[in-house]
């Protein structure tokens, strides 16, 4: 394949990527839009667009339940014990969502289950976060869990909150949302392995793999 042909494929790929960005942002017609990108990809094409009804057309969704109460700025105190980061992250989620405004490091050690599920020797026994999900479930909120890469995690925490832990980090944190292109976290051990209140893609990749637990709403 010639260099010119590769250049053309690169240009087409960029237009296709931009097309996806236009679709996600509801820009189906006009400029810039999916329609404009398709016309650039295929000059002379005759289109008869029928764009979908968008969430913005349907009016703002009224938050309900814990999502209506969620405050990403909720304070995260430093952890008292060296092994209870998961309890701190869980307590932060419960306070930030008002599911339990009085949740604390100690109360969540008890709810997770001391010493069978969390203890000074190993910290949280099940690194996937199964016991954290069980506790949140006791407050009537459904969760999901997966081991994910940065792009999926970033997409998830644009629309909910939860917790996550890196295998090489050996540390659980709450996730407040985004800070630009980074993850904005509630960290009970600021400075541990060089991480404070945000997690960059590079830090994420170095400290993973990450198990993520997120709340559904």
């Amino acid at each position, binding site marked *: *394949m010639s*260099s010119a042909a*590769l250049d053309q*494929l*690169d240009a087409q*790929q960029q237009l*296709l*990527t931009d097309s*996806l*960005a236009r*679709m*996600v*942002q*509801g820009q189906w017609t006009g400029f810039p839009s999916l329609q404009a990108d398709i016309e650039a990809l295929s000059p002379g094409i005759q289109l008869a667009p029928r764009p*979908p*009804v*968008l*969430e*913005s*057309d*349907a009016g703002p969704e009224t938050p309900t339940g814990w999502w209506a109460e969620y405050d990403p700025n909720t304070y995260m105190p430093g952890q008292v014990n060296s092994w209870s980061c998961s309890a701190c992250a869980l307590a932060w989620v419960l306070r930030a969502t008002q599911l339990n405004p009085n949740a604390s490091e100690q109360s969540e050690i008890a709810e997770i289950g001391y010493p069978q599920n969390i203890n000074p020797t190993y910290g949280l026994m099940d690194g996937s976060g199964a016991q954290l999900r069980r506790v949140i479930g006791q407050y009537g909120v459904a969760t*999901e869990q*997966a081991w*994910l*890469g*940065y*792009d*999926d995690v*970033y*997409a*998830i925490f*644009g*629309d909910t909150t939860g917790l996550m832990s890196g295998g090489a980090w050996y540390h659980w944190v709450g996730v407040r949302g*985004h800070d*630009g*292109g*980074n993850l904005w976290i509630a960290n009970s051990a600021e400075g541990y392995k060089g991480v404070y209140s945000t997690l960059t*893609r590079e830090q994420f990749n170095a400290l993973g793999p990450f198990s993520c637990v997120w709340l559904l709403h």
Partner: protein
Amino acid sequence: MTDTDHDARITQLQTQQGLMTQALAAALEGKWQGAGSVEAFLYALDPSLQGQLEPDPPVLTS
């Protein structure tokens, strides 16, 4: 362009093609945001979009 550069560009295009296909499948399934969504595959295609998008997805009928 060296053979190595040439091969690297083709490999990158193949990767992008795979991500694009997965993104279109996610769109067909109405997964616009969250894990395995169009938004997530878009970030994989172009990480510089993180923090730049303002999602306004279609209303789903089911």
